[in-house]
């Protein structure tokens, strides 16, 4: 069983990203569940999503305290120590950032980081800074825990017509442009 914790801000599609990922895992015959946690339902407020996937049915309904992977949808959030709390030794970090990896202050527990300028990609393709599809592409590229195909199919089920195409493009861009760095 692996646990993933998403961190984002209201309006960035954090919760939707976790739901799309549950759909993708389900397509690959895995059991998966995601619970969102947000305070006030307004743009910009902190949002978290707790996702689990496993080969066996998942019954627990509780938050994620020792994630195998943390996905950070917004560059400003990396300043907050909350984001890295409990990450397993050697855990994976997926980060939206414009900075090069040398300038990031990664906690020692992080074993691998996949980073991409998701805001620029999303502004370019979707004309808005909603980074969710791009970050899903980054997630696939960095972890390989689910196939890109399953994620793209799940994206196509979530949106219709032009929105679906644009989000597929954003996910592909995230997948291709993510850079991976091992933090040893």
């Amino acid at each position: 069983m692996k646990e993933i914790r998403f961190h984002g801000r209201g309006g960035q599609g954090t919760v939707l990203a976790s739901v799309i990922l549950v759909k993708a895992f389900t397509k690959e015959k895995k059991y998966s569940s995601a619970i969102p946690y947000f305070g006030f339902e307004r743009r910009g407020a902190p949002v978290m999503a707790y996702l689990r996937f496993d080969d066996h049915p998942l019954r627990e309904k509780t938050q994620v305290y020792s994630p195998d992977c943390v996905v950070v949808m917004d560059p400003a959030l990396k300043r907050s120590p909350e984001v890295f709390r409990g990450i397993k030794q050697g855990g994976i970090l997926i980060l939206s950032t414009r900075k090069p990896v040398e300038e990031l202050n990664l906690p020692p527990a992080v074993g691998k980081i996949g980073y991409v300028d998701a805001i620029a990609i999303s502004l370019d393709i979707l004309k808005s800074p909603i980074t969710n599809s791009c970050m899903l592409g980054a997630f696939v590229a960095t972890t390989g825990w689910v196939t890109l195909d399953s994620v793209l199919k799940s994206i196509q089920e979530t949106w219709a017509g032009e929105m679906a195409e644009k989000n597929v493009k954003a996910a592909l861009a995230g997948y291709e442009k993510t850079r991976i760095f091992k933090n040893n």
Partner: protein
Amino acid sequence: MERRRFLCPVATEPYIVATGEWRAQRPVTDPKKCVKCATCWLYCPTQSIRHYHTHLGADLQYCKGCGICANECPRHAITMVLEEED
């Protein structure tokens, strides 16, 4: 500071949330195009438009960068610009 025991949910210390830190894009107003019609002020959902000497523009401490002002400005005086990352 002395710890007071609160019996019921009350908040007594104001805490300013700098919602400006949440921005991904920043509105930039061109003073040459702005006619101070205050359409941006009217539409801003967080009341973050201020009167500067030459134009009306966003208060960057609170502006969340939603882009509504840029969308509504009848003179197209506002452009959304990518925010710096620190």
